[in-house]
């Protein structure tokens, strides 16, 4: 034991600037929401503490449960389409030369379009009278109408999201593929690996890290989707395409139900956090050594 050691904890003050920054960017805004979520605010001077009442109400609200279910189905569907599709596109993209640049630019275009513009584009595109897709499908004899058929509305929203966001997955995978050293492909040829084996044992493992990013980004984005379906279908027909964020916006801004919507926001936030964490740990766990033997 060394008792002559000088105790000086003044270095902790260096954390202060960071703490202030985080407080203003995250903690304080979040705490105001927490504050509302446990009170019933009737007016500036009339407020009552409600405890977990709003949380219970929200969790038991059947409309919200339905929206949550729709949201889950939507997010998992687009992940199931966009991740394999993105990998596939990245694999067939040209590797060098002007073609590579041209394809990269073409593929990036949808990512540059603002959300509600995307909604408007597809709204017009799917109209039966002047929209190319709506008109075309009707001419083919298909009864396609997103304002009347829930199935059509769903398919169109998913198609729209795939069109808008698959390029992001493709670009991430493309960068991941480019970073694989040429020696891996050469060694695989010498080992007589098939195309599938090269994909399964070289490309896919080397893509794990970018895929984690892609899955997390796409999950979080899609779970928060708002402007595109709102502009395209307005959440309808009925409430068939009303997702969580739209329910929240209606409640908080439309009805000014601050308490319930604050409780709902917190639940929403925790769900995203939880699912992202599950994705992350699952993928990371898959890479672990299952039966490590010996030292080190």
């Amino acid at each position, binding site marked *: 034991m060394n008792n002559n050691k000088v105790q000086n904890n003044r270095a902790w003050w260096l954390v202060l600037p960071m703490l202030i920054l985080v407080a203003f960017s995250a903690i304080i805004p979040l705490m105001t929401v927490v504050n509302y979520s446990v009170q019933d605010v009737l007016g500036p001077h009339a407020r009552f503490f409600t405890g977990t009442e709003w949380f219970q109400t929200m969790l038991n609200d059947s409309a919200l449960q339905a929206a949550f279910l729709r949201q889950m189905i939507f997010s998992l569907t687009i992940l199931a389409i966009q991740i394999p599709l993105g990998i596939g596109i990245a694999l067939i993209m040209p590797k060098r030369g002007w073609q590579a640049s041209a394809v990269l630019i073409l593929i990036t275009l949808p990512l540059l379009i603002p959300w509600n513009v995307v909604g408007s584009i597809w709204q017009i595109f799917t109209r039966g009278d002047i929209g190319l897709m709506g008109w075309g499908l009707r001419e083919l004899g298909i009864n396609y109408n997103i304002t009347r058929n829930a199935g059509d509305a769903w398919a169109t929203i998913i198609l729209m999201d795939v069109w808008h966001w698959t390029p992001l997955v493709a670009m991430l995978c493309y960068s991941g593929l480019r970073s694989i050293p040429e*020696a891996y492909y*050469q060694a695989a040829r*010498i080992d007589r*690996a*098939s195309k599938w084996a090269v994909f399964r*044992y070289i490309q896919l493992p080397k893509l794990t890290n970018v895929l984690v990013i892609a899955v997390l980004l796409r999950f979080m984005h899609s779970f928060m989707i708002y402007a595109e379906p709102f502009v395209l279908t307005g959440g309808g027909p009925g409430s068939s395409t009303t997702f969580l964020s739209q329910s929240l916006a209606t409640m908080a801004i439309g009805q000014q139900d601050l308490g319930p919507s604050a409780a709902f926001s917190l639940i929403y936030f925790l769900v995203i956090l939880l699912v992202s964490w599950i994705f992350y740990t699952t993928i990371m766990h898959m890479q672990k050594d299952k*039966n*490590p033997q010996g030292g080190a």
Partner: protein
Amino acid sequence: MAEITLKGLAHSYSKTPAGSDDYAIRQMDHVWHQGGAYALLGPSGCGKSTLLNIISGLLEPSEGDVLFDGQRVNELPPEERNIAQVFQFPVIYDTMTVYDNLAFPLRNMNTPEYRVDPKVREVADILELTPLLSRKAKNLTADEKQKVSMGRGLVRDDVSAILFDEPLTVIDPQLKWKLRRKLKEIHERFNITMIYVTHDQLEASTFADKIAVMYGGQVVQFGTPRELFEKPAHTFVGYFIGSPGMNFMDVTHQNGKVMFGDQPLPVNSQLTQLVATASSSNIKLGIRPEFISVANSPTPNTVPIHVENLQDLGTYSLLSFKLNGQLFKARLPEGHSAINEPAFAEFSDRHIGLYIDEYLVEIGHE
């Protein structure tokens, strides 16, 4: 089994090579015999790796033929050439275990599992990988990974040659020595042709029976480590092999004497004659630092020198001196007498090499 013959081989990375500078490999003929341990030695960018990739089939040569046992294989892809290659950075399949890594080439050839297993265990045993077999390859150290990538070449029964492309670059020095010995052991055991690319002369001479020294896209000498040392066929070999490299003097012939600048050199009449009749003006005499002796009194065979410094390197001393303004190195044995000025150097007559246009001219000393 394979004898690898390179016939009139040349390679250029440019589609329309204009001059010889555009060639990574200049026109060459070479034979690698079955079962030999060879090294391909040369500085970075001399075309060693290009040559190796042409042999393995990763590159198609722009001119000439590659023959395996007399069969032209130019168009055959690497997977059809019965060749294994180990790369500078270990290539392993991250998600597989060591066992699966070693079994991978066999499984790709649809080998039944009952034949895969003994082969994998045999190779793992030789490479001392047995305790690691069930580990994921991703978590191994660099030398273990490099052993795994070597092992993938050894499991295949059909492999007739293994090519190594500077395989020990990323390995710790004390492990390098162990792995090199392992390679030697494997070579003796399997009777496989091995070609080992390196830029380290020590690595080359400990591994190989014969070394091909490459310079500027050509094999300038192919011989045993001893031949490379004693009779460098090209000034580059003299300079590159040995530590320090050979001393070279640009000489001319004047009034029946071989002159190094203003200094007449006491060389024998045969050498004088060869210098006098040389068809080129690019004439050099080369002498290894080991074959220069230094004394404090002149004899008819010595030249006066200007001593620069003397470094004691334990088992020998390295003397730097100037002659005609050019720096020379001489390696003096332990326990030599003190060197004071005036000093005189003697060049061992039978170890002087004559180089015309950079290539050695045979003298026939005896």
